[in-house]
């Protein structure tokens, strides 16, 4: 299937608008077929438990007849726990729906994503340490090169341009010090 003919994953609500894989709905995935669904359900239940425990440590209501700060979070924790359990049950029955409009991951792109994250983290640390402009120029050039904007010269021009654009926009036009 060509890219031109597919729905991109860039349309999150498409998942809701379009029905999922009919073969999956017809039951081609058997019970216990996907540990991932079980893990997702278990994680949701775990989050619910953590919220319940954290909410239990909150102080009681200082006024009589008032609900304490913990009541609402605990109510949500119960709801989340039920939903996590429902997901586990769906997983055990092999009934979790799949969104087949999602584009598949290109395994060769993991290093690019990891590099992008590393450059952004470096940028945020450098921004705090040495200021915006220098750290932005260096990191945006690196980011441009990493993402495939072009050769080093093109990446340098694009990255520097972006850094200067941001600086002018914030410092000079919006009066927000970076």
């Amino acid at each position, binding site marked *: *299937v*060509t*890219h*031109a*003919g*597919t729905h*991109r994953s*860039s*349309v*999150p*609500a498409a*998942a*809701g*608008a*379009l*029905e999922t894989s*009919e073969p999956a*709905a*017809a039951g081609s995935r058997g019970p216990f077929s996907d540990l991932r669904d079980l893990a*997702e359900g278990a994680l949701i239940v775990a*989050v619910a438990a953590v919220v319940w425990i954290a909410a239990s440590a*909150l*102080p009681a209501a200082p006024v009589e*007849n*008032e*609900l304490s*700060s913990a009541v*609402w*979070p605990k109510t*949500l924790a119960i*709801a*989340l726990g039920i*939903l996590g359990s429902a997901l586990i049950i*769906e997983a055990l029955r092999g009934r*979790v729906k799949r*969104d087949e*409009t*999602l*584009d598949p*991951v*290109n395994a060769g*792109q993991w290093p690019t*994503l990891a590099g*992008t994250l590393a450059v*952004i*983290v470096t940028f*945020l640390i450098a921004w*705090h340490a040495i200021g915006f402009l220098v750290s*932005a120029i260096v990191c945006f050039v690196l*980011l*441009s090169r990493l*993402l*495939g904007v*072009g050769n080093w010269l093109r990446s340098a021009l*694009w990255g520097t341009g*972006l850094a200067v654009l941001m600086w002018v926009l*914030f410092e000079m036009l*919006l009066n*927000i010090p*970076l």
Partner: protein
Amino acid sequence: MDALLDGFGAVGDPKVLLGVFLGTVIGMLIGCFPGVGATTSVAIASAFTITMSPVQGLAVLLGIYMAACFGDRIPAILVNTPGTPASIASTLDGYPMAKQGKAGLALGISALGSGIGALIGILALAVASFPLADVALEFGPAEFFALVVFALTMMVSVAGTSLPKGLAMGVLGLMIATIGVDPIFGNTRFTVGVPELESGVSFIPLIIGVFGVAEVFDQILTRTSLKEQVITQLGRLFPNRAERRQLVRPVAIASGVGTVVGAMPGAGGDIAGLVSWDQARRFSKHPDEYGKGSIEGLAAADTANNAQVGGAMATTLALGIPGDSVSAVLIGSMVIWGLAPGPALYSEHPDVVWTIVALLTLSTVLATGLSFARLKSVIKLLTMPKPLLWSLILVFCLVGSYAAQNQIFDVWLVLAAGVFGLLMRRFEFPAGPLVLGLILGPLAESNLRRALVISDGSASVFFTSPISLILLLLSAAAVVFPIIQRRRKHRSLTAEVLATGAMPTDPSRPRDETGDHS
């Protein structure tokens, strides 16, 4: 009458006019790029518009919102890839038309339908939202809590492939909204000693991360060497007299359906487009042509896509309940400006409502004009290399989020939310309910607690009020009905597979170039 004149008069300010123009142009361009949806762009723009006056800021944000609904149909028609989820239905007939050498006509009909639909939706906003706000003024805490529950269930019932996942995301959004100071007693909750969290999780950085950064990360991860095939031969733009006559019925149907669907909390342009396309087909004299390049089908989809904006804004402004993800982000900005949507807005600032009506109208007229002018330049943008776009979006997301409160913490939050958003996408957890939960969380909690205080802790208060009871019953139906529907469908599909041995296909899904369902 004074409010109407004041509201429309505020749009005459040159800075506001410039804001609408900029917002409309940005919205058109952003709508053209698949993946950079209206929610992402309005969220990023929110960071920049916070320092502006409310009317100037609204001019930019509403301009982007409306114009993105015009721009998103261009890639849907020329590349068979929706610019935003709202233009999914445009691919059904738009792309087949383009392949038949009628790309220009498809774009022309789409622009006309979009313009007419948008104006009818705005008219509905102007006419219906004031009485709706009057009704909502009678709501007490119990009714408002029931309304929030209704909004959440409506959204999650359409927001994902898995109901538990959609609901879980809504609840998670409500949970995140509890971080910070308790709205009644003032003690802090779940801040884990981080002072920046005492005022709650900043909404704008979180949204920018979950939608904008996550989108770029996802596109990086799914990048292939295949290039998009853009149809560049346009042909004529305007429909002839016979075609115009043929379009009257689908445009009329879609305007009504789009506005009503838009007014339902959580049901956005994607649902409006698909429902209208289906309804127009039912009432058409040529139903067989739908899905094969029907001008009626295309007009119905795009008219509804834009008509829903007025409906969504009516719900958002009159009730304070977001009609879709974009209006959820708009609510975030309006709250910061001290213009929280809801019935109180209509009694305290009715001029602002009229200003919004005027801004949306102006943006619609501008976007319709832009849809016909410089079309070839816009098409060239579709071939813009993705890396340029990715780096541009990432930089705007990171630096833009800093602008909201001038703190690096928010930029870290964007990055964390971006990684979280990527995981959500890959594991098929919808982001829409999370945003809705985040926006509705404080409203839900404060009204629940107030209602229970008034009733001395008795939950019967939610069932003795007729409005509250009806809303809660509708909420239950919104959750239960899809489950029953899916079970029925599952049974019938299983029976069909067993009987025929063949996998059935879904006619509502777009086809790839070979004609197979993608």
